[in-house]
């Protein structure tokens, strides 16, 4: 199981980029909200490729089950 982590980059102009890793379910967005609250004003939010990979795996799993 992947470790739950936050990767935080603070640029020389102060802008903060936070990427959540291995955090399942709504908790992923909760962590993003937490950092936004701590730091300031949210400029942009997106789901990373990992988000879509995992979502795809779940869909395939469901598909296999339905065929049985």
């Amino acid at each position, binding site marked *: 199981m992947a470790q739950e*982590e936050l990767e935080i980059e603070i640029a020389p102009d*102060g*802008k903060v980029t936070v990427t959540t890793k291995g*955090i*399942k379910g709504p908790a992923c967005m909760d962590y993003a909200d937490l*950092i936004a609250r*701590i730091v300031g*004003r949210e400029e942009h939010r997106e*789901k990373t490729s990992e988000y879509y990979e995992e979502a795809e795996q779940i869909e395939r799993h469901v598909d296999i089950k339905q065929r049985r």
Partner: protein
Amino acid sequence: MSSCIIVTPLIIAGWPVISAAVTAAVGSLGYSIVVPQLGVSTAATVKTRNRAEIDIDDSEVLSETGSAGGQIVVERAGIRAVFTRDARGALKLCVEGDGLSKLELKKIGAELIGRVTQQYAYHKIVTELQQRNMSIVDEEVTADRTVKIRVRNL
């Protein structure tokens, strides 16, 4: 699931916290803190220099009881930068320098403000996450001065 967010820091703090961020930031840019001397007016020495004033809109300097407030002055090779609290309570930076245009001074000021914001954001994030039982497992400063940290739940 994973997500990525980009956040612009808002500097909302008392003068001691802002002073600490300025002190931590300016060293890496080659500035040194100038200790004000009694009876010496900083304004009188800069009459002939170009000057750029930058309001830091995303900021609020909280007035705290017992806090001296005032200003922080930093200098580097003919450049003098003064951080103060303006009438609205926001942080303000005034940069002065010999032989530099207003545009150049504004650029220097923007770099300074960026680094101060970076230091403020770093300390705020680390302090708040540690209070929530999260720990830093890795930390590095890249060549372009970006600070990278990896945080995990304890």
